[in-house]
């Protein structure tokens, strides 16, 4: 009982974090009909700087990291991406009102990773002094790409039962998705961190701006979440339920797997939380165009709406949950 109360108290304190406050602020503004707008070029600049920063930080850490310590978390991330998509496909397609391709695409987005949620997780953990392996954000593509590919393969399977053709197209889908703005920025950052010495510019620019630019991104995500709700209202209610519960289930899966890796290899509590945050998150910037191209018959309003309007806010607000859990369970 007292544990539950402690948990609730800790959780409520966490909700006051500025990162989440900006998210809620954006929602409230949109709900009140504010005409405030963030210019698109600024939004793109924010995402670019966040991705370069995340990539560079991870790349610099990878230089010094023990490859063996990386192996298990990377495999775990990939497994999570796959399992979440399969789970979503099975769950959503049980329901008669769900078109098969819409369900698969939605599951794909929820298996993939959100930049904004990952960045928010990093900032909130740093504010709380919860340390993680500095290379942990590099797990992003390991979870993101398998999830999207799994969804695409499932969709192709659903359409045709011929197994040879798609395999070829898969490779071109991978390279095409790596060429997208978001993933290229992340990978460029990682490469720069690995092979050059970006420390001075990292410390003087990318690191100090990170938190502030994220606060503006949270504003955008909040306003967008509210705006897309209207579009979502027209589709099956089951998506709303999925959007609410999936981040929690996926985060718990991520936490559990991270915990296992923690016990096995001493993966840090912060790393466990990061795995949970990535699993809980659903892609809203880089995943959608990949799915639109690869599964054109799926209704984009459904999967984007579910992810942006419900999945992402729930995932963001669940960050303190995983941290509180880590604090209580992993004795940090």
């Amino acid at each position, binding site marked *: 009982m007292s544990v539950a109360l402690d948990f609730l108290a800790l959780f409520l304190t966490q909700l006051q974090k500025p990162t989440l406050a900006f998210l809620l602020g954006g929602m409230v503004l949109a709900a009140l009909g504010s005409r405030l*707008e*963030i*210019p*698109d070029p*600024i*939004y*793109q600049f924010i995402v670019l700087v966040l991705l370069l920063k995340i990539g560079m930080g991870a790349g610099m850490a990878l230089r010094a990291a023990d490859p063996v310590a990386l192996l298990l978390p990377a495999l775990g991330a990939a497994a999570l991406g796959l399992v979440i998509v399969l789970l979503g496909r099975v769950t959503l397609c049980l329901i008669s009102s769900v078109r098969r391709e819409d369900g698969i695409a939605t599951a794909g987005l929820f298996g993939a990773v959100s930049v904004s949620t990952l960045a928010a997780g990093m900032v909130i953990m740093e504010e709380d002094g919860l340390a993680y392996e500095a290379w942990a954000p590099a797990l992003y593509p390991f979870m993101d790409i398998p999830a999207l590919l799994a969804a695409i393969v499932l969709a192709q399977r659903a359409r045709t039962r011929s197994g040879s053709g798609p395999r070829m197209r898969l490779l071109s889908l991978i390279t095409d998705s790596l060429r*997208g*703005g978001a993933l290229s920025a992340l990978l460029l950052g990682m490469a720069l961190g690995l092979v050059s010495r970006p420390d001075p510019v990292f410390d003087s620019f990318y690191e100090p701006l990170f938190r502030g630019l994220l606060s503006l991104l949270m504003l*955008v*995500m909040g306003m*967008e979440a509210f*705006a897309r709700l209207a*579009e979502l209202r027209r589709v099956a209610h089951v998506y709303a339920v999925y959007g609410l519960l999936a981040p929690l289930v996926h985060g718990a899966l991520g936490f559990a797997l991270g915990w296992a890796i923690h016990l096995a290899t001493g993966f840090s509590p912060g790393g466990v939380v990061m795995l949970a945050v990535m699993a809980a998150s659903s892609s*809203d*910037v880089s995943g*959608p*165009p990949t799915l*639109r*191209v690869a599964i*054109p*018959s799926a209704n*984009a*309003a459904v999967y*984007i709406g579910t992810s*942006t309007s419900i999945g992402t806010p729930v995932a963001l607000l669940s960050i303190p949950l995983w941290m509180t859990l880590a604090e209580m369970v992993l004795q940090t």
Partner: protein
Amino acid sequence: MTTPAVKLTIIVERLLKPQVERLLQQAGLAGWSIFPGGGRGTHGIHRSQAAQLVREFAIIKFEVVLRDRAKAEALAQELTQDVMAEQPGLVWLENVEVLRGAKF
């Protein structure tokens, strides 16, 4: 002084920019213009100046001036039937009169 020509207007998401450009190039066109915008349609709202979460879903408008009416119609047909088949967007033709007709 002026030469009759046709203007082909194509509204699509940025996602399709490479495909549309490839098609225009294959048709041997001398040039085209692109204007960023936004809009509303059966696929919901596309913001024009405010943050559009997914860059590839922003709206762009191609304006292509060419003298060969038949080619314009063939391009329009191919765009709507193949490139934009299940995708948002629209295509229309207009009669215009160009100067420096030799350019086209």
